[in-house]
């Protein structure tokens, strides 16, 4: 689903965010991405979202090499990637329902279809009863779940999360992680950037560790297989 081939990202001022990163994530795999701040976690996620382009190497998502993707194609790639942010990125000028419906609206789904899918997503995160509320009226954990519902509402094959539990207490964090685990069980590839090491350990999943732009652990389990490609 995701493949990084010798990916290097260099910003102008001699600052190299990623150095020759190689890894591969299969369908339905759930992995953590960890490392101290500035290690390159965000850069890696941005490369997947095509917010940034690699300086060298190739980023492949769903069989498509993102490097050469023309600018106008970017929106169509993003429709296949659900993203959850630490600060939710919810819009407070509309209801929970309308927030979750945004990816569907963007795709031009019919309102009938959209209504059904939004409710399914809200039901999945346990917020069906709050669809008409403003996100401001919700607690931090609930807001994060609205963000997750928005990320999965159009059933993307890839789900990215950037510090999704950053502001939450351990109980809520565990709930959110369980949600992610459920998505991976139905075939969604999930990549979670986090530095909550305790939680990561508890989950016992594959963990990619970045240090100063180098992937020092959790790289490809089948080194020979993808390294040569």
């Amino acid at each position, binding site marked *: 689903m995701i493949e990084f081939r010798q990916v290097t990202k260099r910003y102008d001022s001699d600052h190299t965010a990623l150095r020759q990163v190689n890894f591969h*994530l*299969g*369908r*339905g*795999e*759930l992995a953590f991405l960890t490392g101290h*701040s*500035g290690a390159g976690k*965000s850069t890696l*996620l*941005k490369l997947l*979202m095509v*917010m*940034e382009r690699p300086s060298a190497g190739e980023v492949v998502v769903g069989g498509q090499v993102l490097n050469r993707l023309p600018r*106008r194609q970017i*929106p*169509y*790639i*993003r*429709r*296949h990637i659900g*993203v959850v*942010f*630490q*600060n939710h*990125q919810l*819009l407070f*000028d509309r209801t929970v329902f309308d927030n979750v419906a*945004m*990816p569907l*609206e*963007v*795709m*031009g*789904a*019919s*309102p009938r*279809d959209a209504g059904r899918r939004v409710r399914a997503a809200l039901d999945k995160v346990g917020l069906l009863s709050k669809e008409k509320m403003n996100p401001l009226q919700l607690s931090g954990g609930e807001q994060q779940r609205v963000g997750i519902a*928005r990320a999965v509402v159009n*059933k993307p*094959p890839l789900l990215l999360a*950037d*510090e999704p539990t950053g502001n939450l207490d351990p109980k809520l964090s565990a709930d959110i992680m369980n949600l992610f685990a459920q998505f*991976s*069980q*139905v*075939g*969604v590839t999930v990549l979670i950037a986090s530095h909550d090491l305790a939680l990561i350990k508890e989950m016992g*999943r*594959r963990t990619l560790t970045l240090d100063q732009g180098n992937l020092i652990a959790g790289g490809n*389990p089948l080194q020979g297989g993808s390294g040569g490609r």
Partner: protein
Amino acid sequence: MAADSAPRSRKPDPARGARISRSPWREQAESYFIHHRKVAGDSAVRMWRTPVASLMTWTVMGVALALPVALLLLLTSLQGVSAGWESSARVTAYMQLDSSLDQARALASEVGSDGRVAELELIDRDRALAEFRATSGLDEALDYLDENPLPHTLLITPEENARSADGVAALVTFIEGMDGVERVQVDLGWLQRLNAMTDLLARAVWALAILLAAAVVLVIGNTVRLSIESRRDEILVAKLVGGTDGFVRRPFLYTGAWFGLGGGIVAWILLQLSLWWLSGPVERLAGLYRSDFSLSGLSIDGGLALIISAMLLGWLGAWVAVKRHLDDIEPGEIAGG
């Protein structure tokens, strides 16, 4: 981990494929139109929520649009005047004082048979004197004269197709060349000057219209720029979840068009108000000049054309702003360090 989820992983893909086959193009088109209607409605509602600011933008646009349109209307009225006078342009031929009535009649029949002459009236010198006496008030002064100072006169109305300035000039030369004609008079000079002036005015008005249209585009552009700034978060999220440029632009283009609509309506109201306010004095003035000159207002068609062009200008202004500012908003900064 990857291995045990692999068999189940195929599930979402067929589901996506099925979804596409379930929504044929008709449904796609339908939801596209529904989306357009929703965006149009949302933009209108947003405008409605800030009535004072919107009203001010509308008024600025209205004034900027009303000014050139008012001048154009005035110009049309003036051109109507000159056309009216052109059609009543008459050529007056004065005969030599010593020519007889028979000579005058012969001349009249000769001129009258020319194809360019529509109507011809012979005023003999006695009748001319009588009319002059009646209208000039110089009754007593005329009594002191030994003889009638007025010649026989031919009043010639040119045929429709000879009424242009050139046609009339050719007719004048023709009549001047005839025997017994002392002088031919045609009062076209002032008409030509009026025409020249309206031509000049027309250019000035168009130049002004173009400048003011540019001003309208800039005003709308600036207003839409502010609106883009205030909806920055929404634009970021829309881009993050895969909104195309067209999707992100759409609400702002509608906003521009709505500003245009409001501006057009304000312009129409302003025009009708000033017309109503001016019509009394204009009528009185025209009455003093014995003219049937009147200011022509904007027809329904004209009004609709005004509103549609205003909407197009608003849309254009929004387009300029959107092109300049929307591309700057990229979700790069959204993911923290």
